């Protein structure tokens, strides 16, 4: 089973790789264009090119140093300390992976779940409350917290599926609205008595009890926590669900051709609801792991933009579990690296967002890359589609 898991990686690696290169190339141009000093040298092309090249080189080197391996850090505090950025990359990737899997799973059933953000928030809410309100042995407490996250996220997502199944309300619209509602709801919730810290009025919930926190794996200041195993396990689970289980068979059948699925006796409303429930549950679990892995205290900004980045991650991974895992790692690296980018070169970290969008753009458009790199049919893109309004 494990070997099968990795099949297809090699086959599909070229397209993402070229997209990656091309996106970084364009990102470099944008960095140069936005630098008045370098643009001022346009009159002398030689000077312009060298300073542009070194500017771009330094920027990407900074991203690398900040996300994979930091030579300076290694020089100061030893070889292994140099891997600190990589630990950060993985920690950043974990919540992205959960939410990305949520989006990917929905994609495979032909649903576009833009609502991972809201589901993530609800998962974190559930985890937070169970985490701080009870004192239990860790072996019971942690699973309980995770279940709370799954259930709340699942209900919040399942509601969308149910609504679509019963009334036909399109999930894109409903999830967008629910994202707004979730972020307002958490603002309100954090002001209620149950979620206020003692003697404080700030909208920040108490930290979860230490029995509910996921243990750190490497100790010291490396933040890598047990969540990575949960994340890998869930990635495997989603892969199993989609390719080996009868439920996943239904999901894929409805996603590929809902008419044929219905004709063969598969209940489309059931699949819609179940998909959105599981998808929401995955995002909610992500919220829970994020909360008890690194954050510990619930705040209004707990989800950041994870739920939205997750969509890009799932697209990058072409809606497959393994692809999503790699996509999450890449995005984790870019986001972690963007900190060093800013502090070392002064390039605003938003460039990373541009690069992320470009990568997905190119992956979704194999034709374009074929033209640019003059390739013959060596690139194949998975047919990844979101259903239109009538779908």
């Amino acid at each position, binding site marked *: 089973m494990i070997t099968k898991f990795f099949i297809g990686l090699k086959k599909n690696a070229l397209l993402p790789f070229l997209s990656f290169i091309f996106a970084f190339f364009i990102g470099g141009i944008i960095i140069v264009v936005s630098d008045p000093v370098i643009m001022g040298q346009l009159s002398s092309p030689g000077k312009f090119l060298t300073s542009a090249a070194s500017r771009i080189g330094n920027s990407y080197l900074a991203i690398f140093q900040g996300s994979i391996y930091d030579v300076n850090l290694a020089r100061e505090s030893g070889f292994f300390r140099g891997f600190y950025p990589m630990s950060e990359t993985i920690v950043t990737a974990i919540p992205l992976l959960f939410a990305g899997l949520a989006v990917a799973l929905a994609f495979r059933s032909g649903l576009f779940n833009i609502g991972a953000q809201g589901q993530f928030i609800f998962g974190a809410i559930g985890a937070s409350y169970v985490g701080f309100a009870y004192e239990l042995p860790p072996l019971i407490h942690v699973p309980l917290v995770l279940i709370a996250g799954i259930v709340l996220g699942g209900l919040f997502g399942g509601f969308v599926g149910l609504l679509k199944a019963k009334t036909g309300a399109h999930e894109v619209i409903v999830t967008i609205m629910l994202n707004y509602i979730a972020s*307002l709801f958490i603002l309100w919730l954090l002001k209620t008595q149950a979620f206020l810290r003692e003697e404080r009025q700030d909208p*920040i919930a108490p930290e979860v009890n230490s029995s509910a926190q996921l243990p750190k794996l490497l100790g010291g200041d490396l*933040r890598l926590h047990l969540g990575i195993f949960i994340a890998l396990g869930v990635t495997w689970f989603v892969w199993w669900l989609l390719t080996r289980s009868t439920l996943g068979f239904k999901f894929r059948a409805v996603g590929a051709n809902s008419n044929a699925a219905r004709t063969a006796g598969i209940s489309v409303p059931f699949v819609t609801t179940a998909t959105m429930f599981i998808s929401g549950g995955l995002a909610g679990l992500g919220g829970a792991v994020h909360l008890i892995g690194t954050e510990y*205290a619930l705040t209004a*900004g707990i989800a*950041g933009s994870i739920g939205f980045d997750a969509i890009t991650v799932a697209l990058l991974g072409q809606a497959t579990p393994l692809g999503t895992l790699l996509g999450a790692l890449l995005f984790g690296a870019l986001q972690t690296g963007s900190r060093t980018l*800013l502090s070392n070169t002064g390039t605003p*970290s938003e460039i990373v967002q541009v690069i992320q969008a470009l990568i997905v753009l190119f992956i979704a458009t194999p034709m374009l890359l074929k033209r640019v790199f003059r390739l013959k049919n060596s690139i194949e893109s998975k047919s990844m589609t979101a259903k239109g309004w009538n779908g």
Partner: protein
Amino acid sequence: MKRANKVVVAIAAASLISSVAISPAANAATKQKVCVALDTAGINDKSFNQTSYDGAKRALKAGFASSIEYLPAKSNADYAPNIKKFLDKKCTLIIGVGFLLGDAITAAAIANPSVNFALVDGWSVGKNQKGITYKTDENSFLVGYLAAGMSKTGKVATYGGIALPTVTIFMEGYAKGVQYYNDVKNTKVEVIGWNTKTKTGTFLGSFDDTTKALQTSISLEQQGADVIFPVAGGMQATTAANSLKSKKSNVIWVDAKVMDTGKQYASVTPVSALKGLAEGVLAVTKEAYEGKFTSKEYVGTLSNKGVAYAITPAWSKKIPASLQAEVRDLAAAIAAGSIDVNNA
């Protein structure tokens, strides 16, 4: 010959640079690296992130810091790694901007007892985490009083971005100031947008929805308010832009002086309610520079000029002198402790 000369000059220049670079290191006690970990609103928020970092800049100029640095957060998840990054960079004073960074700062403070930490809008912990807080209800009490005195319609307004304690404290003080004016002058100036009894009010739900901010400003005008106090970061520019156009209301600037962060709106902005974030950061930096750093909370008040109000120069003649004098006396009384804004 010429070439040789050039080389000499270059070497000289290089040694000069290196000597400059080396000299503070030689005097280790005075070397202070101040690092500011920002909230998600970013360095250009025209509000507490920007002004806090301004404090660090001023400290650099004054020589209290040898170098300064900042990192913005994309989300809450960035707080801890950003602080970690600062620790790796050997910062000696790390300042977190916003109470949301509190947990991350505290965790780092406990783990790194040799590094000084400060938390804007937050609390003190242990020996090396210093809270920096502001009694902004004191100065907003004053601008509330001033607003009530200037209002011709008998209605003044306020609104907030999101109902956070740092926001609502402004609104509460403002409303209390109006009440005080009513008590003193026996008038019935009404406050729209905040209710001191139910502690509810008008909020945008975000700090970036300009359309909603504009609509709220217009609606407040339609309700008859002629002075508006927007406590919503950058959105105050929207309200001021509207006032410029409608000519129906004036605006009270928040956080910084309107002449510094919104010059073009000075003509509709009689007064600014200052939250001395830069002063607070500067004061803490100075304290650490002088080796007097303690975890005793820094509280910005009217008396230590941590909070203040500033009449816009163009308005100093337009606002009745008597009213200005009353506010000045009131400020003195609050600073002296003879009036408590919460029970006035």
